């Protein structure tokens, strides 16, 4: 199925024009006429094949060749090739070519002039259609781009949700493990030590009572051991929070990263850690790709009310290019939880993410 774009219509009409001109040539069969026709075909193929920005201006050569032939040689082939050249010129937006009509008005027969004017107008209309078609394609491309960006953001957020769930589970297990170890664990171990001490004072007690006491002590010892194992197994083996960020900085291969964390980071929620870690990862990735940094400084500042992450490097500075899709998505995610992400490139490149703690 043919896609009826203005360019396709132009190609079809051009081929039809060349064919018709060849048919006209068959009535005269002069060598010069065929040479001109073949020259115009070569110029047409050149414009079709070469993708130079200003290649369309070579149509002026076609016009001049057709005009010279029209003036000095055969009239009908000259007219046909001139019409064809003017049609192409107007399609390519070379509007001054239309001024040839003023000259042709004096030399052509009325019907030939009408045909020339029709060809010229056809080229102009196709040119207008082409401009409108291109602008619509650009609009479509922009909306597709926006759609894909939103889709990418949605995928990021979906992946983040899973990560946050996982991190929440890990954080809760760590909390339980810590509570057991710090609270119940100490009490139970203190009781065990007391009972062991009391055992040494019970040397003269009834043997049956001593046996029962020893069994109970043994069971208590086993219970402490199991509790200790359970606390150990529940402890998180993956890095979280500050440790995770420190580990990310430690793995950066390009240049040294100076990581400093200030304040009480225990109040920072899993959701905020997730955004902060993503900011840090994205920044370090961008430094690897685009910057010639020799050092990177990462400062994490946690107050009771907000968390501030600043990533600074001495790489590329100056005019800030529009943010890439990665940082745009992070800005969205920070905004969703009430935060903000900004970039400053005046003297050094700084990325600052501030998120309130609710």
């Amino acid at each position, binding site marked *: 199925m043919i896609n009826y774009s203005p360019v396709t219509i132009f190609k079809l009409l051009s081929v039809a024009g060349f064919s018709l001109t*060849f048919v006209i*040539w*068959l009535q005269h*069969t002069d*060598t*010069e006429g*065929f*040479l001109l026709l*073949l*020259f115009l*075909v*070569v110029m047409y*193929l*050149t414009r*079709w*094949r070469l993708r130079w920005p200003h290649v369309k201006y070579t149509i002026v050569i076609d016009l001049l060749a057709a005009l010279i032939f029209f003036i000095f040689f055969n009239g009908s082939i000259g007219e046909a090739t001139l019409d064809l050249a003017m049609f192409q010129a107007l399609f390519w937006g070379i509007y001054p070519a239309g001024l040839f009509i003023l000259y042709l008005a004096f030399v052509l027969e009325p019907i030939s002039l009408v045909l020339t004017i029709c060809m010229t107008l056809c080229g102009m209309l196709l040119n207008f259609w082409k401009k409108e078609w291109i602008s619509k394609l650009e609009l479509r491309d922009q909306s597709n781009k926006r759609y894909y960006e939103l889709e990418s953001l949605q995928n990021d957020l979906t992946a983040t949700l899973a990560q946050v769930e996982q991190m929440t589970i890990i954080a809760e297990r760590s909390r339980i493990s810590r509570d057991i170890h710090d609270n119940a664990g100490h009490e139970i171990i203190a009781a065990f030590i007391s009972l062991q001490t009391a055992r040494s004072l019970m040397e003269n007690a009834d043997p049956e009572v001593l046996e029962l006491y020893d069994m109970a002590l043994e069971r208590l010892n086993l219970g402490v051991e199991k509790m200790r194992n359970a606390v150990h197994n529940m402890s998180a083996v993956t890095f979280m929070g500050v440790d995770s960020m420190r580990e990310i900085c430690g793995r950066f291969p390009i240049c040294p990263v100076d990581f400093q964390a200030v304040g009480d980071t225990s109040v920072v929620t899993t959701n905020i850690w997730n955004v902060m870690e993503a900011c840090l990862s994205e920044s370090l990735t961008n430094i690897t790709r685009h910057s010639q940094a020799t050092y990177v400084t990462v400062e994490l500042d946690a107050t009771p009310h907000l968390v501030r992450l600043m990533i600074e490097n001495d790489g590329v500075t100056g005019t800030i290019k529009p943010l890439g899709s990665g940082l745009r998505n992070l800005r969205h995610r920070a905004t969703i939880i009430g935060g903000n992400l900004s970039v400053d490139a005046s003297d050094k490149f700084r990325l600052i993410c501030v998120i309130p703690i609710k």
Partner: protein
Amino acid sequence: MTIFTFALIRGFRNPLSLICNAIIPLGLIFVRNLWVGDAPTGFGMVALAMMTGAYLMAQGILKDKEDGAIIRILSAPVSMLNYFMQNLLACMVPPMIQVALLSTVGFLRYDWKLYFTLAVALCYTMFTMATVAFSFAWHSFFKSKENSNNGFMAAIMFIAALGGLLFPVSQLPGFLQYVGAIFPAYWVSQSFNILLEGGISSEFWLFQAILFLFTVAYLLYGGKRKIV
């Protein structure tokens, strides 16, 4: 020039290519009756053999496209233009050797004048370029060798008949005498007619310019971007 050497050797591996590029032209050159007299037909026959030989030599590029070798070739540090030009050069070598031999034999054996010999060599050279470019453009049109061969076998008879390679176009009826002008074969046969009738004239040079433009047109159409 690795691709050039390989393309040349590959071209001659086809027995038909060897026949069309070497045996037939060499055989025709030495048949006196084809080259003397009022209307010698040897010029057209050699041109037809050249056209077929060039087509067969250029088939390698279609084979590369068909079996995917071109993808592997272009992943090497070879530009597409380089690949294309080396293949083009390889296809032109056999016809050019024929032209040189023909000119030499014609000059020595058939007493051609020097200007006539050089003009014939020029005609055949221009025709060689145009026909090789035509072969490339033809192959770029097809995806498989079989379809290309079938189409060409059907087309070449029309081209030869309408172009005046087998018999003078004046024997054709009416406007059919000029329809062949869309093929380079017509203009090369007209060039030989001009040479045989009156020698080199301005119209002869116009014919050569037309043959050159045909070369450019076919190369633009069947150029490197259509290879892959």
